[in-house]
């Protein structure tokens, strides 16, 4: 109509976004190069709130990027390098096509390359920012280091990933900061604490795996490129904080031996440790005295001291113990975990380099075996299954070895990443574990008594019912959120615990308030509490199910015995 009227799609969100193809043409890159650039620079597509506006009236599904981001991309020096590489490829192909081998060789020698250092600096301006993103980098590096060295992915990348993952493991061993381990069917999850950050990463098993076809390998390779650079710089900085030499040097007796980095791992973790300076304690901040009630302060101080003591005790979990790993156990994972807690580890000489003592060493305290049966030659050592190590790490104490002997049905491997809230179902195995941690004696297993003769079946029944009651009682208490039963001796004058009295008074007030509510409000309140107690009800259901299963298994065993 008029000339001064505002036209549609000329301002606002329609001009803030740009579609992927337009962005690509603006940068004059191919699609693969554009994707690579976006991944390296950390520029992600956005979903606009009003797609129809941004798409200028059409509802076709398009990928949109912010225009400011693309404009920022245009100042990136790597874009020039991508274009140079494209030209290089074109020239090389021409030389090969014309059979000009000399030109081809010369071109090959001057292949253009680029560095990602400035991108890392720009994306992570401080070291702590980089440390926050290291989870992903670690998982990717560990994953790529397990790839087979066919030509599908650059062998150099695989070797670099291997080197970086080994350096990281070495650092964690030195710092003794591994906290949790979880063996899942996918892989092994580790959690460690580094400079106040909690870092979780996933390591695949060392078995051969077939690669899925619907994964874009180019994208993964680009991510790996970025993450290897990031991890390398982080490793350097971490080693610097411990005043260690980076890259860690290996001294070995065999001269002029070409070591691949997969062999280097064991050298690093075995040969390097004696050369390291004594373990540096992480600088821990002293407790800051806070203004306020003395009681609060004292309690918090006590808590913190206790936490520190616990941590120190945990770090020396396997100190002084000597382990020997049999051939069939996952050697690298176990060596890493054991060394993180101060143990000495070795394995058979023919397996891998770096074994320090042989199986015939008399001072070995534990021998980790995974076979169904083993001819035990030495009396003064325990033959355990590998789950014992992991469960000890998660329980933060040395568990009784009897449950993990060779050929024994293992107790379930519980996940340390699960934190049960009040009222949630706690499986009986975990209850037992908590009890162990508190120092109580473990309950007598029913299976032990079943080995007696049939005369004591009645006793068995009684004991079973007793145990059942105990279990039920414990579960109920857990469900209601109270602490385990406190023994009360008659006639003793107990000193009044001020805190407890306060809590009781508050509970009393709450009950009174609930009684005095109006009918309408009470109705709402009931509804809310019903919802909250849902988890408790589910926990009860779960415990009933478990009981049913236990009873069924007991009945089966009885039938077998009778037969």
């Amino acid at each position, binding site marked *: 109509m008029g000339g001064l009227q505002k036209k549609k799609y000329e301002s606002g969100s329609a001009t803030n976004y740009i579609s992927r193809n337009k962005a690509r043409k603006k940068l004059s890159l191919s699609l693969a190069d554009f994707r690579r650039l976006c991944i390296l620079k950390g520029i992600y597509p956005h979903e606009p709130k009003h797609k129809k506006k941004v798409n200028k009236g059409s509802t076709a599904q398009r990928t949109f990027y912010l225009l400011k981001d693309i404009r920022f991309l245009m100042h990136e020096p790597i874009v020039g390098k991508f274009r140079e590489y494209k030209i290089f490829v074109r020239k090389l192909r021409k030389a090969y096509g014309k059979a000009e081998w000399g030109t081809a060789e010369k071109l090959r020698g001057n292949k253009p390359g*680029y560095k990602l250092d400035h991108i890392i600096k720009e994306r992570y301006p401080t070291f702590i920012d980089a440390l926050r993103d290291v989870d992903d980098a670690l998982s990717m590096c560990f994953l790529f280091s397990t790839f087979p060295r066919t030509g599908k992915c650059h062998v150099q990348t695989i070797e670099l990933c291997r080197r970086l993952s080994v350096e990281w493991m070495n650092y964690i061993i030195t710092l003794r900061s591994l906290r949790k381990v979880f063996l899942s069917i996918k892989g092994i999850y580790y959690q460690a604490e580094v400079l106040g950050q909690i870092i979780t990463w996933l390591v695949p098993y060392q078995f051969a795996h077939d690669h899925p076809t619907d994964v874009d390998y180019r994208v993964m390779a680009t991510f790996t490129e970025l993450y290897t650079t990031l991890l390398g710089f982080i490793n350097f900085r971490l080693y610097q904080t411990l005043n260690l030499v980076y890259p860690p040097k290996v001294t070995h007796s065999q001269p002029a031996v070409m070591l691949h980095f997969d062999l280097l791992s064991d050298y690093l973790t075995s040969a390097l440790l004696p050369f390291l300076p004594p373990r540096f304690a992480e600088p821990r901040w002293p407790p800051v005295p806070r203004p306020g009630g003395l009681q609060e302060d004292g309690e918090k101080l006590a808590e913190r001291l206790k936490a520190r003591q616990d941590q120190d005790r945990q770090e020396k979990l396997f100190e002084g113990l000597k382990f020997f790993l049999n051939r069939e156990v996952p050697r690298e994972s176990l060596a890493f975990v054991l060394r993180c807690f101060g143990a000495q580890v070795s394995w058979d000489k023919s397996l891998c380099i770096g074994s320090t003592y042989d199986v015939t060493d008399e001072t070995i305290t534990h021998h980790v075996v995974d076979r169904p049966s083993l001819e035990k030659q030495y009396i003064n050592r325990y033959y355990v299954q590998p789950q014992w190590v992991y469960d000890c790490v998660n329980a933060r104490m040395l568990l009784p070895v009897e449950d993990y002997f060779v050929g024994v049905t293992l107790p379930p491997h519980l996940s340390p990443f699960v934190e049960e809230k009040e009222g949630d179902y706690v499986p009986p195995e975990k209850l037992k574990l908590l009890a162990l941690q508190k120092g109580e004696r473990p309950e007598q297993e029913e299976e032990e008594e079943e080995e007696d003769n049939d005369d004591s079946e009645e006793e068995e029944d009684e004991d079973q019912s007793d145990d059942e009651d105990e279990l039920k009682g414990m579960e109920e208490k857990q469900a209601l959120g109270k602490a385990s039963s406190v023994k009360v001796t008659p006639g003793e004058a107990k000193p009044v615990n001020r805190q407890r009295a306060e809590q009781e008074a508050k509970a009393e007030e709450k009950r009174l308030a609930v009684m005095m509510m109006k009918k309408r409000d009470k109705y709402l309140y009931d509804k809310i509490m019903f919802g909250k107690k849902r988890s408790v009800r589910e926990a009860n259901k779960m415990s009933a199910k478990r009981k049913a299963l236990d009873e069924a298994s007991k009945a089966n065993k009885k039938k077998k015995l009778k037969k």
Partner: protein
Amino acid sequence: ARNMAAARRHKRVAASQPGFLRLKPDLDHSASRIGHKKRVNKNKKKNWNKYSDIQDVEEFLEDVRLQERATGGLLSDKSDDGLFFVDVGEQKVRPDPGAVEKKGKGLKPLRIDLILQPDSQVPPPKDILAYQQPNARKLRLMAQKAEKLAAMGVLPRRERLLQRRRIPGSEKPVANNDPARAFYDLWRPDQGCDVFSDPPPRWQRPEKLNVKPSLLPAVEVAAPGASYNPDFTSHQALLLEAHETEVAKLKAEEKLARQLAVRKEDLATEESVFREQVEGLIEEEEEKLEAEEDDEGTAVGPTAQTEKKTEKQRKREKADRVKLQKKAERKAIDSRQQLFQLRTISAELRRREQQTSVRRTRRKDQQEREKVQPRRLGKLRFQAPDLDVQLSDELSGSLRTLKPEGSILKDRFKSLQKRNLIEPRERAKFKRKFKVKYVEKREFREIQ
């Protein structure tokens, strides 16, 4: 010529020996000649060569040369073993174990080659000229001086000039994924990166890019039921989850099948078929249709009569004015009465505020939820990965017999998609494009 002269001398000397018989008899037996040798002056240089007999020396030397040629040295210098052997008797020819067995036919060396081989044991003389270098000493001294300078670290002038010509950016860059590449402290305050240390504010990274696209953690730990040796309840819970997803999938399929199924009402029955066939053929219905059409014929449109309506217009305008006035009065009264309606007004306001706050909280919750969800970034939606779970009979109690489930590569890839770092894409399919063939129709072909 020397040989000829020596031969002639030899003949002469031999002829002058007593008792020498000539071929042609000497006619005048000059007895005076027999017994008389011609007296020669040996002090003249001319006669030294003519009348001296060196045959014995020559013979001796020839013998020596022959020995050297034939056997490579004097026979007197040789040991007994080299010259003689003890004949013990006939020996059977034992085949040499190291010798090669019979080769083919034509592998004997040619006669001409054997003839052309050197048959003398005397080694050929060394060509001194080939080993002579006129300035060997000079070159040796120069090399020693250069070595001394190199040991001190001084480069020769040529290398210095070449290095001065080197361009700093043209050196071969270390590849990014070189396993032996070096790292340095990137975050030191005074360390600048080589390429892009401090960009101008116009080119700095926008703040929005530092915000992560999703609040999900990078590595999500698997559920406790996914442990390799899980406890009963958590494993059951995980199986239940997997079961529910499968049931939901089945339900969706069934729903689709139900929606696409043919309804019983749509199936053709004999009645409906008959009715369709007979449609329009019965006469009664035709008359009814005709009657209906006649009634719809008259349609009257409004006629424009401007002049008559001015009075009406005036009246209407006045009525409108009165209405407006009344409205204004009503408005004034209302605004005065609002003073007395304060309570209800405030109640109304409170209700509205509460509604807006409820809506605000709901919107905020929705926003928070969206921050954790995978966004729709392209043509395809995010497909959640299948739960990794091992059925009860697949569970192995031991780490050795564990068969890993699911691939970590796929898990990482899906996690990247879930966190909105990459958009979900599918593999490009191979579309076969056929060339368009242009063929003339028969009619056109015939026309010439």
